[in-house]
């Protein structure tokens, strides 16, 4: 696999942007943080591109999440979908989604796991490694989100 050149990196980034941006929105409920994280991940890719272009969405998501947590607010506030980002039209869109009901009841870390798994298609091992948590935690979070969806009739039809 040849090295990823800056030009190639730009193409790959543009191709992955829509899916990763949406995943970050669903995780952070915060458009600014999602864009900041992605921009920082883009720069990281220019400096230290991934070894290959396989699962680039997963790489960008992990790096962007890590970057957004290293911002000037080290312990990022938990943005509530109900109140915190009411000015953001993106929050209103998420509220209308069926899965938005589930996401709004999870913590940001739980959302990061569920979105990575169900939307980006990352394996539990990839999520555990990328987010720096145990595989059992990933498994339990996915399992609990299933139970939560059952409680609340999400995907009931």
């Amino acid at each position, binding site marked *: 696999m040849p090295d990823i050149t800056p030009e190639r990196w*730009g193409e790959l*980034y*543009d191709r992955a*942007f*829509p899916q990763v941006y*949406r995943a970050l*929105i*669903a995780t952070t409920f915060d*458009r600014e943080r999602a*864009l*900041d994280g*992605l*921009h920082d991940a883009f*720069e990281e890719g220019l400096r230290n591109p991934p070894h290959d272009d396989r699962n680039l969405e997963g790489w960008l998501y992990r790096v962007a999440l890590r970057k957004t947590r290293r*911002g*000037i607010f080290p312990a990022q506030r938990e943005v*509530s*979908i*109900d*109140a915190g980002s*009411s000015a953001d039209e*993106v929050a209103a*869109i998420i*509220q*209308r*989604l*069926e*899965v*938005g*009901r589930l996401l*709004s*009841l999870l*913590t940001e870390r739980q959302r990061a796991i569920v*979105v990575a*798994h*169900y*939307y980006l*298609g990352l*394996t*539990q091992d990839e999520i555990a490694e990328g987010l720096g948590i*145990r595989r*059992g*935690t990933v*498994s*339990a979070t*996915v*399992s*609990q989100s*299933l*139970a*939560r*969806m*059952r*409680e*609340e*009739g*999400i*995907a*009931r*039809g």
Partner: protein
Amino acid sequence: MDDRDKGLTHLFVRDLDEIPLPLRGEWRRAPRGGTAMRASRLLLGIGALAAVVAIALIVGFQLNERQSSVAGPSSSPSPRDTAIPVLDPRASATPTASHTPAATVATDIFNDDFGFAFREPQDRLTFRAESSQTRGADFSIGGFAVSADGRRMVYWTEGATEAAGAPQELRVVSAGDPTHSQTLVTLKSGQMGGGIVWSNDAGGVMFAVIDLNPVPGPPGSSAAAASIHTVDVGGTSLFSTDRVIYRSQQGGVVLQPVAWDRPAGVLAFGETGEGGFMFSYDVTHFSGSDVTTTRANVPVQITMSSVSASSDAKYVVGIDLTAQGFTYWPLQTMSGAGHHPPESKYGMTGAVWRPGTHEIGFVGPSNQFWLCDVDHETPLGCGRTAFSGLPDGAGTRAFRADGSAVVLTVGPSGPTTTYLLVRIGTDAKSRSGDRVTFQDNGNLVSSVRFR
């Protein structure tokens, strides 16, 4: 993730792909110091905030000067305070033309012997009486289940995460006395509580436990990651101990309790992967001290989260994505794909068991609410219209715990959800269709019974 596990992936992709993208020009920014950029943005924000506060203080001072001589202060109600029950103007629209309800007031429909449970952010669950906005109880919990009669709730306490560390407990509490809970089970370190269901006689609880640290082993060996348990729950005292009924022989499998017919000695649970389709329907028979579990492959795509049992645990219903409708089967055996009555394809906006009956409630054609009585299915179908006049997009949420009313969601969801509580008669001649709308910030998940 194999094909049978892609149900929830489909749901997430379908929904999240609707999030609009920023303009192309915002996708990238020239290399910059991200932190510095955010810091300058913060400084600008602080400056703007200071200016706004200063203006607000000046304006507020002037307004206060004017109002103090005219009238007393008017409180600004919180969103919850604004949710005043109102009668829906469509209250006169009933399915039986021969019966037009007399003028109905909201208090005729609300019954404060009952209440609602709401899921709130931050893993909280709250109760309120039907007609009141005031919360009567507030729990910090994981999963939960309300008994078939609505009188009691079992729930997992928070904890057992890497951050919290405290062992999780399964507790039981009475809806009428939510301040006193009793611990049924305390999990071990490294375990986490899963799904819960009550037995049909409310004398026991079946629950799943997830192992955070599955025992590693050679391929194909028993690396139990999940298990099904039961515990008996007495009226005023607790008896029996946590009993392990089944352990998964495969890591990554999620076990989901479905129903427990305790007097008959039969329980059922489903197995799913991480994607959400039930790939195995498992039935356990108790005979003395013997416990026998039979697993059966599910040949169709039934979402595990849609599977629920009638209050007497005799029948089970689920949404079958292959057939685009609901399907039902007896608790003790799921032969093939279950059974699809003709009306089932209308039930894609919800298929919920009406307590105390074998009727499945769902929103059917022409914006009508249907009840499918599985005991009286004919070749022509099983359904009857309970009431009509529902707005577009209405979805079934929960029946009142005694089955005498149903709650539906209406309108787009948002910070405040609009619900419709509709009375259902006990027979075809009884008055049905009287309704009242109410709003709440919480996500209504169940009916409870206080008295």
